[in-house]
């Protein structure tokens, strides 16, 4: 994704005249990518095309054989997705959710990864513990949190009250002022391990002699972190963030379980699912799925362009 900063790692050897050596290397490369491509095309190609085709029709879930081609009506028609205020509010919700939660997860994940990377006796335990939130199925953990955050019989309110942090129970998932942040909090709780584990792997691969050199030079730890560790693990962090962002932009289970169909927190995926399944509007739903896809593409492309520029600027 990003043009590599690590020169020692860069496989790229620009050469004006491509030798056949290089060509055979490239042939090998294509052969090696082929299985992945074939699998992906096979399982994703047809469904994706179909979705896009449906988005141009008025198909209904009840009977997919009876449909009419309606062109871009589902997108820009009078009742098209792009004219639906609910859609745009879902887009706004989702973007807000993604940006905040991915940012928090990255920061916390980094912190946790650093903890995990510190040799100590409790490390094994910690590593297993940290992964637990990620291991519990989302549906279950969302329900669990709803349960725990309930203002009537939720244990969190009781704990917070007994610690004296709040004086009356908070309706975390019902109070419109709190729901959004509650959802983000739960998402952060759940997916920080994902970030942490990937970053830990990246940390493990930083050559140790760089640290030694910095230690001897007396570089303060914070600087070592920001100038050596961070740049070296940055590619991995960015990839982790991309995948987190992709997931966050498609967030569904969590919001669906915790706040059902409330407009205040409805995400793009909830919207899509609602149209596609609950409302039977396969045509319209597919159109909104496609728009969701485009939003994600735009977002990712923008993000990558941004990080690439930043990384080259360093």
């Amino acid at each position, binding site marked *: 994704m990003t043009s590599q900063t690590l020169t020692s790692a860069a496989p790229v050897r620009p050469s004006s005249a491509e030798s056949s050596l290089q060509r055979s290397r490239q042939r090998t490369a294509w052969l090696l990518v082929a299985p992945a491509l074939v699998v992906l095309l096979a399982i994703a190609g047809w469904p994706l095309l179909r979705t896009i085709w449906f988005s141009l029709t008025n198909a*209904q*879930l*009840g*009977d*997919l054989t009876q449909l009419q081609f309606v062109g871009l009506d589902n997108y820009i028609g009078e*009742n098209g997705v792009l004219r639906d205020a609910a859609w745009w509010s879902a887009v706004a919700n989702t973007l807000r959710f993604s940006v905040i939660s991915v940012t928090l997860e990255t920061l916390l994940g980094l912190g946790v990864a650093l903890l995990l990377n510190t040799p100590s006796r409790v490390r094994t335990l910690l590593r297993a513990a940290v992964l637990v939130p990620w291991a519990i199925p989302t549906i279950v953990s969302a329900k669990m949190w*709803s349960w725990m955050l*309930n*203002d*009537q*019989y939720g244990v969190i309110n009781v704990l917070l009250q007994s610690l004296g942090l709040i004086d009356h129970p908070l*309706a975390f*998932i*019902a*109070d*419109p002022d709190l*729901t959004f942040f509650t959802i983000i909090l739960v998402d952060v709780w759940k997916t920080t391990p994902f970030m942490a584990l990937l970053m830990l792997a990246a940390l493990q691969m930083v050559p140790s002699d760089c640290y030694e050199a910095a230690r001897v030079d007396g570089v303060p730890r914070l600087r070592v972190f920001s100038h050596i560790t961070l740049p070296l693990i940055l590619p991995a962090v960015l990839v982790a963030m991309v995948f987190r962002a992709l997931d966050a932009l498609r967030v569904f289970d969590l919001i669906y379980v915790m*706040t*059902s*169909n*409330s*407009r205040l927190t409805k995400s793009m995926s909830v919207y899509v699912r*609602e149209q596609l*399944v*609950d*409302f*039977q509007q396969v045509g319209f739903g597919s159109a909104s799925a496609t728009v969701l896809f485009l939003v994600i593409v735009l977002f990712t492309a923008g993000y990558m362009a941004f990080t690439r520029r930043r990384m080259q600027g360093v």
Partner: protein
Amino acid sequence: ATLRLECGAPGPGQNVCMDSAKEWAKKTGNEVQFVATPNDSNEQLALLQQLLGSGSDKIDVLQIDVVWPGILANQLLDLKPYSKGAEKQHFASIVANNTVAGKLVAMPWYIDTGMMYYRKDLLDKYHLKAPTTWDEMTAVAKKIQGAERAAGNDKLWGYVWQGRAYEGLTCNALEWVSSFNGGTVVDAKGKVTISNPNAAKALDTAAKWVGTISPKAVLNFAEEEARGVFQSGNAVFMRNWPYAWSVMNQDGSAVKGKVGVMMLPKGGNAGRHAATLGGWQLAVSRYSKNPKLAADLLLYLTSAEAQKYRAITGSFNPTIPALYKDPDIIKASPFMAELYPTFASAVPRPSTVTTSKYNQVSNQFWNAAHDVLSGNAKSADALAQLDGTLKRLAPAGFVAAK
């Protein structure tokens, strides 16, 4: 032959269903296999649509929610030719609900309606009578809540119900609106009727509960959350379905023996008792390889004999009026006799007329209600807006027939 029967998710409910089905199998010498579906009815519907949509013969007989006949009608078998008039034994309103464009697509299986649970002991303690209108109920709830809290029971709330933005809220709100004579959102002819002062008044009444006699969290309550509060002894009134009765009277329940049941209050003296109709039906897939046999199984499962068994072992409310007089049943669930009028006059949601658009209608309705409840919108505005939205959904009005 082997039939595949879908009657809910594994658990006590399914066991009761399986008992009857096995009974039938033994009698007729066929085999019945059970197909499980998720507990969550949304997921259940999605799965069924996916399966039926692909013309799969993996299911012969399936259970469907009271609001689904309109949605699934195309995939279901018309039972008229097989029923030989059996449907006439059942509540007419439900049979009407299950008849789409003249086809009987499902047979009633058991019935659910909203009902009001209350704490007999608390009302007795303060010498209060069971209220009949919402205002009375509010007053009673307020009084008991205040007194009890003063006495140190500071977790007590007056009234809990289902305020989450989901189908349950549609049921609750429909009850309020109907009880104030505000109609049923869309009338039987397909006309949108929701924007009217009575409906607005109904929503305003409910909105006032939030934060006073109902916890703020009620805005995210479904059935179980409400029951959780009530069953822990922390609420005076609760709106819920019949299932709560047996659960709350089990051993270990804090309110065992202290619970009374009554009809949902009227919207003022001019109003009426309105309870939303819920419950499940059985239907036969159009793609069944053995439609005749499947219909036979279905008819057995919905027969008086089977319904009686279910009523006694699982307190599933029968859909056959005659059974409400059956002494065995009354002995097992005394409230069934008491609430018979509720069952008989339950208000169906406008699903038959809106057919496949029902979910959209309901979704818009509960969202409007939720907005009002959470104080984000004024009731009149919200309803006017809802009216507009619904009219855009069906510019020419909803038409049942396809």
